[in-house]
């Protein structure tokens, strides 16, 4: 079955075609293609996004009430950041409150969302992805002392929540792996049972060395420079970030007093303050 792009259109029933067409045109921002262009003997209106995808509104006498337990049925419209700002204004002008994202805590940094119900109570998300989603975020923890190197067994992964990194002790030595997901700035967690880092935002997984496993094509998690001082204390510099294309043994800092981070083959990445970016993200781009 050869698909043509795949998704063609979404059919939505409405009680009042006039009203719904106006909603999807003026509030959501779709273009009206025309009336009664499809084989359905009820009045219908076809609307367009900027791609092949269409929305078909069909007027029926009675729209069954929005299923409460099926609250997970929803659709999300994707907008650019500029379109998103304009949509927010349109929503406000039309009397919708758009300021609050009820599930903000589930979103990655830089993911903007408004929830809105159409005239028949169907839930839609309006989504946009800002550049904050790919910016590199400095936690503000600065230089973090982790304790003596002998306290970390080979194979251990120690989370430093405040510094937003994991200290990974491998055979080859230590890695200070930034916990930001390289996909869209979700915060990953270490899943001990399955030996991987997991990002709950869109499901990315990384192995213990921070390399992505899966088909989303994400970059490896970034590294912080770190060292072992003369007394064997592990010191991590959370202000700096290095990108890499995969894991190499030389990235690990040798587990011995005086062990140093080797930048060869790594790319230092400019970072911004997480706090500041989160502030910016709060106001919707």
């Amino acid at each position: 079955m050869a698909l043509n792009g795949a998704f063609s259109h979404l059919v939505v029933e409405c009680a009042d075609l006039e009203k719904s067409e106006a909603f999807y045109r003026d509030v959501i921002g779709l273009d009206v293609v025309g009336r009664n262009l499809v084989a359905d003997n009820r009045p219908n209106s076809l609307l367009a996004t900027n791609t092949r995808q269409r929305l078909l509104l069909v007027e029926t006498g009675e729209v069954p009430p929005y299923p409460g337990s099926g609250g997970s049925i929803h659709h999300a419209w994707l907008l650019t950041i500029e379109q998103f700002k304009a949509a927010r204004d349109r929503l406000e002008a039309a009397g919708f409150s758009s300021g609050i994202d009820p599930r903000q805590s589930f979103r990655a940094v830089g993911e903007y969302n408004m929830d809105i119900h159409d005239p028949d109570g169907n839930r839609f998300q309006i989504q946009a992805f800002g550049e904050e989603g790919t910016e590199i975020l400095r936690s503000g923890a600065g230089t973090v002392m982790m304790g003596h190197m002998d306290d970390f067994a080979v194979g251990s992964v120690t989370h430093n929540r405040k510094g937003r990194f994991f200290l990974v002790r491998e055979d080859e030595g230590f890695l200070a792996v930034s916990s930001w997901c390289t996909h869209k700035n979700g915060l990953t967690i270490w899943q001990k049972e399955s030996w991987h880092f997991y990002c709950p935002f869109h499901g990315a997984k990384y192995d213990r060395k921070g390399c992505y496993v899966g088909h989303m094509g994400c970059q490896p998690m970034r590294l912080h420079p770190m060292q072992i001082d003369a007394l064997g204390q592990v010191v991590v510099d959370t202000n700096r970030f290095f990108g890499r294309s995969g894991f190499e043994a030389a990235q690990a800092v040798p587990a011995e007093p005086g062990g140093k981070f080797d930048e060869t083959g790594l790319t230092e990445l400019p970072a911004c303050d997480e706090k500041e970016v989160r502030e910016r993200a709060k106001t919707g781009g």
Partner: protein
Amino acid sequence: MADVETLSHSGISVHDLKEAEDFYCGILGAQVHGAVNFVTEDTLKGRSVHQSYTLGDFLFALVLAPDFMPMPPADKLMGVNGFRHAFAVRHADFDATIARLKAAGVPFKGPVGHPDKGPFGESVYFKDPSGNFLELLWRRDENVDYAKAPQLDVG
């Protein structure tokens, strides 16, 4: 120009994730995308259990909703249960698509021809095992070079 680029994704409620996955992947050719979880404790705690899939350029999540809306009558093949999703195939492959539905034993209605003045050619209508209405069609504008849906990898 519309003020909306595209549909980003959909969440579709189903009664049984395995059954739904077999249907969407086995019959419609969808692929597993980000595996989120299939963990029963989550369901017991009332958290949403879902898994995302791609079908061509379309990203959707199947969400487990055991107390889902009532099933439509078995003989109702064309309808809208809240929503209906329609997927496009190329005109040249339309017959093969119908044959595939027949071979899989999926009851369908159609093909139904659309008015010439509109962008749609012919459609067949059917349901997934949870009673979500679906449609496959070919479109008269299949060779128009529309903007591509951005690949977001989110859901």
